[in-house]
């Protein structure tokens, strides 16, 4: 079973809670997805005043573990402050750390990310950093104290799937024992299945479900894809090759004259 910071998690589908048509649809989608971990973003203005309580309690009451995130933070200081608020609001040491470097691609600022990870890990947080597939950044995040990594598939909300297959495979091969959760960029269930087939431990989905025409149905579709992908990984997929190989062997077959 997948374990994230010593917490066993049965479902390899993590779900984001933003931009659903309503909390009621969110609740149904969570049910359909089987997700046991939900990310919630904290607007700093609401955290300060406890004004988002109503929505947060809806999320808490869904029965899943909450992974608060620092979405929309552009600086180390902002991300650290938001993490502190999140710890207080959700009474958890888990934090999905996002430090955004650029507004159009929402690409992580990996330098700020490593610095913020170091600060938060030292303070006892269990950090889930949203990062690129860069190996060296991954090394630095692990050195900073992270024990789970969340590499992107493609830019947040873009739905482009796994953009850099080479880089992602290298990351998986390089860190066989670190839980790797593909965060961002997944558009359709086949992308999620592909990530699990490659041996990634889980995927985090938000927009692809919340903005679907029927989010509840899409959540169920992702749940199936994730479990199919993981089963395929365990079953050991064949290696692709350049030439055709007949599935029926010729030698030993009956000769018809």
């Amino acid at each position, binding site marked *: 079973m997948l374990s994230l910071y010593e917490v066993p998690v049965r479902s390899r589908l993590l779900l984001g809670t933003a931009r659903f048509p309503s909390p009621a649809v969110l*609740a149904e989608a969570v049910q359909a997805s089987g997700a046991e971990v939900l990310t919630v973003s904290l*607007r700093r203005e609401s955290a300060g005043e406890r004004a988002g309580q109503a929505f947060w309690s809806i999320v808490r009451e869904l029965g899943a573990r909450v992974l608060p995130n620092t979405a929309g933070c552009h600086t180390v200081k902002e991300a650290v402050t938001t993490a502190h608020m999140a710890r207080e609001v959700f009474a958890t040491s888990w934090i999905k750390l996002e430090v955004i470097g650029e507004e159009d691609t929402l690409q992580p600022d990996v330098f700020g990310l490593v610095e913020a990870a170091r600060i938060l890990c030292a303070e006892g947080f269990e950090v889930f950093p949203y990062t690129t597939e860069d190996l060296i950044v991954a090394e630095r995040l692990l050195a900073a104290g992270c024990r789970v990594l969340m590499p992107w598939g493609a830019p947040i909300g873009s739905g482009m799937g796994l953009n850099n297959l080479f880089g992602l495979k290298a990351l998986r091969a390089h860190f066989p024992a670190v839980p790797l959760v593909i965060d961002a960029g997944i558009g359709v269930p086949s992308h999620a299945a592909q990530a699990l087939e490659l041996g990634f431990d889980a995927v985090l989905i938000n927009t692809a479900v919340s903005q679907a025409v029927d989010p509840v149905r899409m959540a169920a579709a992702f749940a199936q894809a994730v479990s199919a992908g993981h089963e395929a990984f365990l079953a050991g997929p064949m290696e692709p090759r350049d030439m055709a190989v007949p599935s029926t062997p010729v030698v030993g077959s009956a000769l018809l004259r």
Partner: protein
Amino acid sequence: MRATIIGAGVAGLACAVELAERGTEVEVLERSASLGGSCCSWFAGGMLAPWCERVSAPPLIVALADEGFAWWGEKYPGMQRRGSLVLAHARDAGELKHFARRTQQYEWLDAEGIAALEPDLAGRFEQGLYFKDEAHIDPRAALGALAARVQALGGTIHFAAEAPPAPAARGEYRIDCTGLAARAVLTDLRGVKGEMLHLQAPDVSLSRPVRVLHPRTPVYVVPRGDGHYMVGATMIESDAPSRISARSMLELLGAVYALHPGFGEAEILEIGTGVRPAFPDNLPRLRPRDGTLYVNGLYRHGFLAAPAMARRAAAFVLEGREAPEVMQ
């Protein structure tokens, strides 16, 4: 027959009009000192846009709006049924396609079609959606019209008035339309904060509501006439009626400036925030509780849904007729 209605937002005033028109003696009690003093209706966009809303709302919203068009047309002379326009910049073309997939009753427009409807937007957008059956009203003028109608029908509106202690006296109906203030009783109610601006933009001429889709900062602009525009609105899961944040302001202004550079020269007339009351499915409800009928959860559909809710509220208190679609 007497009815006490608590709250003079769009839900309260619509209920008062419905009941007064059926011969009930109505008294409206409003906490603030004047119309719009503490209600989110005052900060509404005033779009009757069920097919645009259908993108994120269940079909019930369209059914409720159907009654709303006729009702507003009759009670308030300022309703304009000029449709609404939904646009996206070239790089966000996918947003338009996705918006269209989740609704109906629209036609696709090309650059020429957009220019024909809104000449000021000529050459600025390649594609758009036109929802020709939608309408818009000026919420503040509409609230004033409803208040005047209540009074003309013999009803009274008391401002700066506290709600009387429950329960209602014998032979008196009590209808609570206090939005988020009813939370102590309606515990599944939550607030969704919205931030908006009023701009005076003499260089921009638009004749119908325009929505600009964007993955992060969608915006809509509703013309109020004479170069006056309402720009809205953020959607934040928060029940604090705090002031606008710098980020929201930047985003709203950036988005309208991208719609038309003339907005760069606009004067900012007003900055407003309101907290919309919403139930978990974001749909409105009638809820009878201890002799009081609560009309609440109109969310961002206040002007669209208030007429249909008021008619159901009146039918419930006067005839005992239930409306299962909004009573569960």
